[in-house]
């Protein structure tokens, strides 16, 4: 009987995934319709051309400036990934400490939450004031924005482990580090990866924002330059480029997650 139940469950999950891939076409259609309307609005002059470039103009701008965009993207990516790495590492250490020592959690957690109400745009000028126009203020801002989703996500994951599981392992004389390695950390992996995915998105945005406020290269610098020269087609091109970079990085995290967590496919 139980076996039958299981089979039914599996069947229903595959049904669901079929449905899901069906659903995924809907946003694609919406985007295509949106682009068509946008193109029509430009070619039929519903909106003055200097205010809104058409999608085709945006693509032309992207292709025209492709080498320049790539060289700026390289700088932004280095800042984002360096900051992301440090932020994830710091968030990880912080989460483990908060999980192991309740007092640390009590003291640190509310401060972490409150700190998130400070917009990164507000800190960026300060960082530039303190650390000048080089790569340092950008990386630090990325660390600050990517650290929080990591720390909070991982902490929730670590504390989601069944109390009874810990009880059972204690009755088997497991040490604290064994409980962490066998039960807590694997249970937190889902949250860990959601945290990383969120941190990835924040990190690219964070790097771009800090570049706006001062710097010599990077996509944020490119953005401020094209804005000043009123090149809106290039402006749109770089905006889309930034979001594509974020999406690709997030997809990469999902691919790694599937590789690292083979059991999650079972469900």
């Amino acid at each position: 009987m139980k076996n039958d139940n299981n089979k039914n469950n599996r069947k229903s999950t595959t049904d669901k995934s079929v449905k899901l891939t069906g659903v995924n076409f809907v946003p694609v259609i919406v985007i295509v319709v949106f682009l068509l309307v946008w193109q029509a609005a430009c070619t039929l002059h519903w909106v003055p051309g200097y205010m809104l470039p058409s999608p085709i103009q945006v693509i032309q701008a992207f292709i025209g400036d492709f080498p320049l965009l790539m060289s700026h993207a390289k700088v932004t990516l280095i800042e984002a990934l360096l900051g992301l790495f440090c932020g994830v590492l710091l968030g990880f250490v912080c989460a483990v400490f908060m999980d192991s020592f309740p007092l640390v959690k009590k003291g640190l957690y509310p401060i972490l939450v409150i700190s998130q109400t400070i917009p990164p745009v507000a800190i960026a000028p300060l960082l530039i004031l303190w650390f000048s126009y080089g790569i340092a203020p950008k990386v630090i801002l990325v660390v600050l924005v990517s650290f929080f989703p990591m720390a909070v996500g991982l902490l929730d994951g670590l504390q989601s482990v069944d109390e009874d599981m810990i009880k059972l392992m204690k009755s088997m004389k497991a040490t604290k580090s064994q409980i962490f390695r066998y039960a807590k950390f694997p249970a937190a992996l889902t949250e860990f990866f959601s945290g990383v995915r969120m941190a990835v998105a924040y990190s690219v945005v964070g790097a771009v924002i800090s570049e706006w406020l001062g710097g010599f290269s990077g996509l944020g610098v490119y953005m401020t330059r094209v804005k000043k020269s009123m090149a809106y087609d290039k402006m749109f091109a770089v905006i889309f480029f930034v979001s594509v970079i974020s999406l690709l990085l997030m997809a990469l995290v999902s691919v790694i997650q599937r590789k690292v967590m083979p059991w999650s496919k079972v469900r």
Partner: protein
Amino acid sequence: MGKRILTVDNISKSYGDKHVLENINITLNQGELVSILGVSGVGKTTLFNVLSGLIMPDSGNVTLYSHNSASGIQSSVVSNNGNTDSDTGDEKEVAGGDSTQTTDITGKTGYLSYMLQKDLLLPHKTVIENAALPLLLNRMPKKKALKIAGEQFEHFGIEGTQYQYPAELSGGMRQRVALLRTYLCDKEVALLDEPFSALDTITRASMQQWYIDMMKDIKLSTLFITHDMDEAILLSDRIYILKGSPASIADEIIIDEPKPRNSEFGLTDKFLSYKKIIRDML
């Protein structure tokens, strides 16, 4: 009956003002299955937490008489382990060729194996890694641990599931894996806390029969918590009735029926008369 293996002596426990357990006395002999029967919330799990050493009782003692004469498989596990934590025995006496070690295990973990109501299998580990968990926690090399666990799969009726994940198994199968894991803890006494109560009725009945059949070959002394009268009468040599607040042992009933039993026993007058006695007591 076999020799005494576990004595629970005058255990009392309270949480703040709430008196949970009062003067609990239990004995367990080698190879016996003894049930502790009581309604939900009476304090059965608290009692097991005390016995397993997870919480300290306010008063009383738990004493283990280790005979080192476990089944062949178990002793091979012990020798492979290279880790017998009963070295700390207070006194040694030689009885009938067996050496008996008396150990006060009050508030000490790692002497009894403990199985909870939930199967508590780690979702990210394969079935065989889950079964071998106690060996791995004991720092046995992984290859060796998996080999020892793998040898038991057929006996536990879970052959072929080794490299599946727990989520792929049915409830009954998962419980068998949890039972194998308990067995591989390689302790002479197992504490089973309502191991079958989360299963549906039909699966539960087949698991009980399977358990009876399997216990023929395994010399394990078992304390068994349940709130199911039928299960207690079917499986036990003796039944302790736990009741009241604070909970105490109201009575002890000896089920005088040869083992192994089968489900036919559940339909006899004898079974029903036991059931009537117990019902009147609860």
